[in-house]
């Protein structure tokens, strides 16, 4: 196990390496940072000096090397928008994003698992059609559209929830629903098909042949088996969570990483973009690793060696 974790951790290195490379190549082409940094009045000479000072005239490889050296010390450069180090700006936003994504995820899980199981068991009935249809609908609705609609209906017309911002628990409700819907929609479908798969397995028949009541068959025999593929795919759905967050945070002015990123992109604040991409990538990798480890708890067949 320990060995497995170490192996996985070591595998992260080349992955990160590739990410830095991709990011660097993009930034390398992302226009002239000097243009953004110097005032319009600056002369050509000033620009040249600045370029030289920043090492922008070095060959690609040298620049990439310097870039690697910098980021290995956590130095992603200065935000041109905020004039401060980019990394702390990004890290500062994590709690807000975690809060939103976490709650949305939790709500999505709490909703989608029972729904998925239910609809799988009621396969080809009206209930199933309803749930499946609902989850497809949830997937088919663009995130921002849902968010704006929720604001219009639940915050402006019926003033139950605040329109935007972060603060109390009620502030969390609408953004969490918005983000949670897309996740839940996807997960319901997943749980359903995974459940159907499980229900067709021989050991379910065995359980029934023992006289186990159907409900118990589902809960104690099928459920855990259903979870395994669901977890695999859910971690791959992480990108849904991240992209969902970007949109949702923008709609609700949720001061998280997504919002920062959108604004950084708009302002061409490349240092922040870089840092954010990097942190998100690391988070994704870590979450993947953690879920892999969770497997071990759920599935005794998996032995990492």
């Amino acid at each position, binding site marked *: 196990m320990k060995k497995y974790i170490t192996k996985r951790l070591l*595998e992260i290195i*080349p*992955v*990160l390496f*590739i*990410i830095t490379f*991709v*990011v660097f190549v*993009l930034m390398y*082409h*992302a*226009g002239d940072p000097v243009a953004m940094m110097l005032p319009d009045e600056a002369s050509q000479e000033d620009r040249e000096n600045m370029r030289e000072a920043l090492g922008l005239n070095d060959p690609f490889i040298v620049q990439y090397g310097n870039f690697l050296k910098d980021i290995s010390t956590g130095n992603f450069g200065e935000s041109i928008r905020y004039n401060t180090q980019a990394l702390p700006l990004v890290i500062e936003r994590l709690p807000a994003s975690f809060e939103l994504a976490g709650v949305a995820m939790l709500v999505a899980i709490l909703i989608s698992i029972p729904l998925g199981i239910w609809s799988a068991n009621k396969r080809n009935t009206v209930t199933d059609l309803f749930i499946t249809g609902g989850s*497809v*609908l949830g*997937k*088919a*609705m*663009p*995130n*921002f*559209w849902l968010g*704006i*609609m929720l604001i*219009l209906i639940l915050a*402006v017309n019926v003033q139950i929830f605040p329109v935007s911002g972060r603060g109390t628990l009620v502030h969390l409700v609408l953004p969490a629903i918005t983000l949670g819907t897309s996740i839940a929609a996807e997960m319901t479908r997943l749980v359903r098909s995974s459940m159907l798969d499980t229900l067709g397995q021989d050991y379910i028949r065995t359980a029934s042949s023992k006289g186990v009541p159907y409900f118990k068959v589902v809960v104690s025999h099928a459920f855990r088996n259903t979870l395994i593929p669901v977890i695999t795919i859910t971690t*791959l759905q*992480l*990108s*849904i969570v*991240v*992209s969902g967050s*970007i*949109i949702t945070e*923008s709609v609700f002015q949720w001061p998280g990483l997504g919002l920062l*990123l*959108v604004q950084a*992109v*708009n302002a*061409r604040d*490349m240092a922040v*973009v870089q840092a*954010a*991409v990097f942190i*998100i*990538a*690391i988070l*994704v*990798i870590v979450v*993947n690793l953690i879920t892999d480890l969770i497997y071990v708890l759920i599935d005794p067949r998996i032995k990492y060696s």
Partner: protein
Amino acid sequence: MSEAAANLEQKEKKSSSSISNLSIFVKLLLKSKTGMLGLIILLIATFVAIFADLLAPYDPVEPHLSYILTPPAWQEGGTSQFILGTDNLGRDVLSRLIFGTRVSLIVGVLSVVVAGAIGLFFGVISGYFGRWVDQVMMRIVDAFLSIPSILFIMVILTVFSPSLWMLIIVIGLTTWVNYARIIRGEVLSLKEREFVKASQTIGTSHWIIIWRNLIPNVMSTFIVISTLSVATTIILEASLSFLGLGIQPPDISWGGMLNDGRDYLATHWWMGTFPGIAITVTVLGIIFLGDWLRDVLDPRL
């Protein structure tokens, strides 16, 4: 009988058997109500996209300044001239919706083609050759997987400004990993299958094995993912529009329309609601069709 004639005959035989396959297909399709619905929706959308010029009552970019924000025909203040009303520049919403179908479908389909081609290549090669090839390729996939595609697209589009083709390529370049991962998994199990081993014992070259044994057998999975990806891409384009990075005018996409209309949702609902419905219905149709394909193309067939 000459060789050509023999070939011809052989081809005929083949096509007759594939026709019988097709008829099974159609039979199964008729049985699945949602699959039918999906197909019908998609056919309509495709039809509309192809014949947009003939179907649209107006030039979609032509403003009718005296008809700005006219509500749909059935609503008070609406006129039968503009059945679904006009937008804030007095452009006919229906015509825009019709032309939007074209761009949305093109973006959806073509970026899936790009992604699919890369992903298929990557997945098959990495799964089949294994060892270090697989190691290297999978690390690249991991790297791409750990940067959510929308993020990637945002970053790329800050470097290259979004045009229709740029968007297609960029979406393709960032979403191929899903294909690669799933197809690799499929290939890993396929290459252990005995028919692949059989080809190997015959001395068939790797490339022919890939071409004749692996690719045809991952096709059904491939088609299913592709179908579903078209749906995701249409939504992705809408989300990018929301961030100002989607299809740019004068090109019309549903996402762009929805985004234009989002500020009018409370006051002039028709601007944003119709493209919203178009997206939802089309995506719904594609998902239904994809789900049906998944059931039908199951290799256990």
